[in-house]
């Protein structure tokens, strides 16, 4: 299997006042197409930073990130935004949906930005909403949905656009156990059916157990296999 994502000796340093904070220190890792992978580690280990770099939301201080042949670590501004629009789906921990759009409009949002005609958008999104059990709630606004329902709409939005990769930052952090389990089931099923690559940042053991591969980070570096999260 060929590598979809290549992270090559990536460093990311933030400046906080007078202090340099080394969020990532020489991380090198590859992810293959169709993987369902967890990025695990304690708070401050660099999970979200690495996810942001792979998601083209941030740029490394040093090193390169490639998605197939595209060197996304060198993209800026409009190029990066357009790349995200065309190739990457996101599910965030919270505040996933645009408050003024309905569940259906949120799910269609990326397709609409890409200029997909309304009938095609509807035909793409409605079966997915039905699949996640939200068909009868498709015209509700986010504040009329529960946290789990909002996350499911975010998953539909990410998958409706058929991205190369879905990045999920702590997607179950605000959900109860039962809702988390159902969301994971859904993402795992879609991963198998559609072959979309999923990468999670999480420290939720329930998520980690369901992933086929776990990449552990500790203090901005890949942890050795015998190192735990504690």
């Amino acid at each position, binding site marked *: 299997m060929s590598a979809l994502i290549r992270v090559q000796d990536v460093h990311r340093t933030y400046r906080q006042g007078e202090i340099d904070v080394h969020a990532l220190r020489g991380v090198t890792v590859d992810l293959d197409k169709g993987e369902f992978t967890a990025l695990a580690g304690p708070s401050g280990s660099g999970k979200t930073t690495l996810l942001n770099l792979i998601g083209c939301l941030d740029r490394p201080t040093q090193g390169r990130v490639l998605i197939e042949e595209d060197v996304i670590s060198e993209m800026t501004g409009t190029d990066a935004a357009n790349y995200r629009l065309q190739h990457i789906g996101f599910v965030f921990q919270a505040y996933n949906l645009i*408050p003024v759009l309905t569940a259906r409009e949120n799910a269609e949002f990326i397709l609409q930005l890409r200029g997909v005609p309304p009938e095609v958008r509807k035909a793409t999104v409605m079966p997915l909403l039905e699949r996640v059990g939200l068909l009868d709630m498709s015209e509700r606004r986010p504040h009329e949905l529960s946290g789990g329902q909002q996350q499911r709409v975010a998953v539909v939005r990410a998958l409706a656009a058929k991205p190369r990769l879905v990045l999920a930052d702590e997607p179950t952090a605000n959900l109860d156990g039962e809702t988390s389990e159902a969301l994971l089931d859904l993402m795992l099923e879609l991963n198998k059916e559609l072959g979309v690559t999923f990468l999670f940042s999480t420290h939720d053991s329930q998520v980690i157990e369901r992933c086929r591969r776990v990449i552990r980070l500790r203090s901005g570096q890949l942890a050795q296999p015998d190192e735990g999260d504690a």
Partner: protein
Amino acid sequence: MFKSTVLVMFLMAWRNLWRNRVRTLILISAIGGSYGLSLFSMGMGDDMHGSLADKAGEIAGGHVLVHAKGFHADRESSQIIDAPPALLQLLRATPGVVEVAPRVLIAGLLTTSESSAPIMLQGVDTDREKALFDPTSKLTQGVMPKTGDGGQLGHPIVLGKGVMAELSVKLGDRVVLTSNRADGEVGRALFLVTGVIATGSRDLDRAIAYTNLAGARSALGLKGSQVHELGIVADMTLASETIKTAVLATLNAWDSGPGAQKGGKTVAGKTVTREVLTWQQAMPEIVGFIEIDDAFNYVFLIVLFIIVAFAIANSFLMVVMERVREFGLLSALGVTGPRIAGLLILETAVLTLVSLTAGFLLGFTAHLALQHWGLDVAELYGVEMGVGGIDMGDMVLRSELRPVKWLTATVGAGTLVMLSALYPAWKATRMAPSEAMRFYE
């Protein structure tokens, strides 16, 4: 793709506007209220300036005036022009001219056996004066002098209410006018009081007096068709300067053509140089007042809108800070910085459109109401009003719609509101999506 993006952005802009209804309604009230008020005040100001111009034309004696050169400044009895009927006929046929009223103007002292009063006597053709100001409408007693009235008992004279009181005379009494004749001698002439006039202005009523042209000419020793002034009443849709140019052309044609043989170019064997003035040239203080008032109104409106613009900029900055995560989300989903800024600009544009529409309805309704009912200044203030020396006590303020000015105000207000959103929009584009998404963590 672009059309699709614009559609979703417009949908979001419209719904975002109503997310915080109270704030939006306050903004709409501020923008719409200021704009509506500015339209209303402009309408009222323009009507007042229009009324002032009409009054100024009335006070000046015409929208365009023809005198002997220097008469407007010196007011000498000897500064006369010849206005034979054929010349008057030609002037009345000039494009834009509605009427030509010949006048003899006398500054003199009116006396009885018991008292005296300084007056400004106008020898007029009453029928010709009606096009500008109908003195008959202000008569409280008696009749206006007609052409041909007069005889051994004296020429007819109508006196202002104040002059009547000053002299303690009544209808049928005789008065004597003492004034400088055209030949430089001091002359006396007998007049018979035939009417009383009340203009509404106390000052004017203490000095005004009318007689017919024959009576005034007789008092000054003028001959034939000699007068001091031709008051030209013009079609007010045309600029006074345009009428002046046309009048000058008519006079030049008369002087250089066969008409000159019938008189008008010379008086007592001397060639007369005429001066032709617009009412603005005759009453520059009124023009100055209108210009200053206009400038003050503009400054006031600009200051008002700058204050509103700052309030709007502040509100939009608050909106940006409240929606940092939303902008981060949009950016993460692939909306570019310029499009996020575009969303805010679009929200402002929708807000501006709604506000200006509300403001226009407000301003236009007020304009229609004022145009229909008017505002009686005298009733409102209960005192005599004067602007630039013009009595406005009988003035009813209405509103006048000048489309170009309204359009300018609309574009100006809209532009200022749109400008106020530029900085917040720019600020929204400066947020890195990764930082924006972590803003509240």
